[in-house]
């Protein structure tokens, strides 16, 4: 008999995988509630802000969770596992898709903003977004995981499967690169 009264909101992510493997809809709903929008958001930013594609990828990701819930090793972190899968899916999507090159050709030049001495906040935001879009897949992934998903360095290291030292040095060079690209906006003080 299914226990409908069970609420899973106090369960840790890893503990939810067991009931999900047994087909408990409420456990899956709880997991989806925690990570559904989050992963969609990740895919949306990683996959050229394409909503339909991000939804497809989110769906595919959670289907993998359903299929492999039984095999999940409980000593691992669920969120790291989820981000690792999502990261690999994005990499596959980059390989598969020709959209990226199309998208790159559509992008506007960041330096255009510098032509105007009266730099405003809107232009700065556009420039930041353009800079982010210009990053290669590896750097963009690092940027999103660190500055938008707010993952810790050890977590990023596990997701990207690289040493922590490498994550730190890549972050350092990423900040330097972004700073160089946005140098023309140095006079701007408060964007918000």
């Amino acid at each position: 008999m299914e226990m409908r009264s069970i609420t899973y909101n106090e369960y840790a992510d890893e503990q939810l995988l067991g009931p999900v493997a047994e087909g408990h809809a409420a456990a899956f709903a709880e997991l989806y509630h925690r990570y559904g929008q989050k992963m969609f958001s990740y895919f949306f930013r990683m996959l050229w802000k394409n909503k339909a594609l991000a939804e497809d990828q989110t769906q595919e990701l959670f289907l993998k969770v359903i299929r492999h819930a039984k095999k999940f090793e409980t000593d691992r972190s669920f969120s790291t596992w989820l981000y690792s899968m999502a990261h690999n899916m994005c990499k596959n999507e980059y390989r598969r898709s020709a959209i990226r090159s199309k998208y790159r050709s559509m992008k506007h030049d960041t330096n255009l903003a510098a032509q105007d001495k009266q730099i405003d906040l809107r232009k700065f935001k556009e420039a930041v977004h353009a800079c982010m879009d210009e990053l290669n897949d590896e750097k963009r992934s690092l940027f999103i995981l660190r500055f938008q998903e707010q993952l810790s360095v050890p977590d990023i290291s596990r997701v990207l499967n690289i040493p922590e030292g490498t994550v730190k040095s890549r972050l350092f060079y990423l900040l330097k690169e972004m700073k160089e690209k946005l140098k023309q906006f140095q006079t701007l003080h408060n964007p918000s």
Partner: protein
Amino acid sequence: MDMQPDDIIQQKEWHQLTDAEKEILQPVTANREEYDLLRNMLLVAMEEKDEVPTIDHSVEAFLQTQLKKNIRARRITPFWYYAAASVALVILATWLLINKPADSGKVAVVPSVEKVNVVDSIKQPAKIPDVAIVQSKPVTEQNTKKTAPQKKTWREINTIIAKDTMLMALVTEVY
């Protein structure tokens, strides 16, 4: 805790920085302008997070149906194995019944005959050639060398025996 430059940038304003933190930041940002630039950039990146649309509800609904299907499929799978095994057994049993020899109670069935080599009494025996293989024994001490068996006719043998008086005497004694 090990503070990363980006942690500091996100958490503090320039005037809040300690000397130690400024030292950590030195390779990334040398002055206040650069620091503010990076801080603003990170704030904009954070804001972008909120600009993401909401995922469609149909995704969750679809996933819930898939969850049920997945469980049903997993439960049904063993039954498929049993069904397949049963079908295989039925086929095997049918095959054995078809190939089994009929019961001898009703119809006399001649058992399959093994091929036996029966001697045909009418048939003429194969003609044995009038030749014998005889190992020639050393007759004298001179003839010590081993010789290959020689083929000789009965007539020749009789002549040899007749010539050899000692052998002839032995044969006579035996008879």
